């Protein structure tokens, strides 16, 4: 469903991704791991269409479309969802209203009928319960004054309400205590299905105990230098990234 070919991305004069390639099929969960500054967040942000990045080379095909030509809202309507590493606060916009507006925009794009307020509220309250989400937070401004954990839960709640086809999770685990991590991971696992795909970016192996990936990729200096299955994550946890980096350098020599 997603084909990334030789992707080069710059921010200003700084090249961050230097030829990243990745292929994701429906039903798969891909974990992308790597040290700080390796380009993990850049990758998910570029897929979602965040401004400020320049694609200098390469292609991204999503379900046969040229993804990079679409505005962020059109990517969302095509089924892509980014769970933000740092969710944005939206003062004065209530969480419930925001989610309903977003869902209506998606449903309209898919030619689905409008949900009544009652139907929407029922669905939302159910999903909020699954995420152990304080009902009060629904009435508050989006993410404003939320704790770090509440913000991350809110991201996964949005994932479950908006129900995309490809979920990009950008360090969703960072800053979560173990209980919150389990709730968030359960949310992601409920979303997981043969009709969906997940690309999960993380610094730590910990979340992969709860969300078991089909593939693990190591991103170093803007390129995937090593790919494997779940046991690769364990090895990275035990040995760090240096051995991969050295291996990559000697292979390049």
């Amino acid at each position, binding site marked *: 469903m997603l084909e990334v070919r030789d992707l080069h991305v710059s921010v200003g004069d700084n090249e961050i991704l230097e030829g990243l390639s990745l292929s994701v099929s429906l039903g798969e969960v891909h974990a992308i791991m790597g040290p700080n500054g390796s380009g993990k967040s850049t990758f998910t942000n570029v897929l*979602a*269409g*965040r*401004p400020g990045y320049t694609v200098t080379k390469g292609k991204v095909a999503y379900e046969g479309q040229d993804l990079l030509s679409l*505005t*962020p*809202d059109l*990517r*969302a*309507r095509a089924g892509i*969802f*980014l769970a*933000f590493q740092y*969710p*944005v*606060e*939206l*003062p*004065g*916009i209530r969480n419930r*209203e*925001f989610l309903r*507006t*977003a*869902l209506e*925009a*998606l449903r309209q*794009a898919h030619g689905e009928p409008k949900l009544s307020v009652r139907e929407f509220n029922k669905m939302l309250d159910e999903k909020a319960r699954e995420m152990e989400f304080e009902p009060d937070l629904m009435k508050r*401004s989006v993410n404003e004054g939320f704790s770090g954990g509440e913000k991350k839960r809110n991201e996964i709640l*949005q994932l479950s309400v*908006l129900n995309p086809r490809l979920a990009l999770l950008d360090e969703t685990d960072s800053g979560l205590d173990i209980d919150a991590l389990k709730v968030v991971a359960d949310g992601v696992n409920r979303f997981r299905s043969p009709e969906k795909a997940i690309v999960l970016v993380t610094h730590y192996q910990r979340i992969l105990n709860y969300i078991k990936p089909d593939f693990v990729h190591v991103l170093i200096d803007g390129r995937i230098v090593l790919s494997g299955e779940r046991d690769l994550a364990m090895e990275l946890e035990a040995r760090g990234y240096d051995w991969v980096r050295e291996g990559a350098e000697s292979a390049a020599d």
Partner: protein
Amino acid sequence: MTQAPATYDRYLADFEAHSAELAAQPSWLRELRHQAISHFREVGLPTARKGNEPWKYTNIAPIAGTDYMYGVAPLREPTVEELSVTAPWCTVWHETVFVNGRYSAGLSESHATHEPREGLGGAVVGSLATAFGTHGDLIREHLGKYAHLDYDGFAALNTAFLTDGAFVYVPDGAEVATHLHIVYATTAGEQLVSYPRTLIIAGKQSKLTVVESYVSLAGGGYFTNAVTEIALDEGANIEHYRVLLDRDAYNVGVTRVRQDRDSRFTSTTFETGAALTRNDFSVLLDGPGAECRMRGLYVTAGSQHVDNYLTIDHAQPHCTSRLYYKGILDEKSKAVFGGTVFVRPGAIKTNAHQEDKNLVLSHEAEVDSKPALEIYADDVLCGHGATAGALAEDALFYMQSRGIDEAMANQLLIRGFASEVLDGVMEPLREYLEKQTSAALPRFREEIVT
């Protein structure tokens, strides 16, 4: 900048032409009006901006250069229906209506309310002219005592033409359950001047909610020169709204509030741009424990200009004030915010904060925001701040990434920005002001059409 003497002559001629009506007024008022017109003759309008701090960023040359007509009766009285779709309206409010500066008994509910009325809790509400006869001594004690006729040319001019206005008196201990609404509507288009005058006297431990609306029924560049005086006695509690919807007109308003010990004044000003809106609003905290909370939202587009000139004067210890204004500016509009908090010697334990936040939607819009603190006492807690910025790019991306298109995302962000002021407004006024906010921005109007 040169003055336009011919125009000032017009004001002086108007005064002479209407001098007959002075004869019917109490002698103290006659005297006050004569003083006012002499003062106006002396100072004129504040057209000089250089070295004139209160008017540095606002040009009133269009007002000074126009020959406005005074005392023109409307061709016909507007109907309640016309008024209710233009002004904020609620069937359970109590209206006192002025059309082109004249009291309209037909549109007001208050023609009989110089007598106590149910729901008004013993309050006296209605025409000031009538009240001169019934509450002359009380009015004399307050009228012109807060908005001094020698404050500036505008205040002097308003006082010189003081024939009628809105009068609200709430006796000691009274609670007015019904919300009062004072409407100043203008029907004629161009070149009409009116002098709305409002006097609100709240007795000890009294309580009331009052909305002042200034609305345009026909558009056009008329000139409204308003003065409002509000006195809160010990422990009085007023929830006050000032709604300025003059569209293409010029509205210069001087509002003066005096608060005695332990009184509480909460006020929200809403301004959608006019050709020029000047909101000169000053609160004197003149008794220990008094509390004042002022909020404001101004929304401008086109070449509109809004100038909020606000002062909170902490003259006594243990008073609290909050000043929170927000602005949304589009196209080539301009906003001026001058907020000063004075803390007088001896006003210890003052707790004051003021903030002005602006959302600037266009590169051509402009904000001059100058919050200031002048502190002459020790042991006080004061703060201030001002911001002006565009819509946050990360917020826009966040919303788009959820499938919301850019136009909708902008709209939500702008509404969200406004809601921080509007959420504190009573219903149904809040809903009305939310609609006015959207209507004031052409970018929303276009969307409504398509």
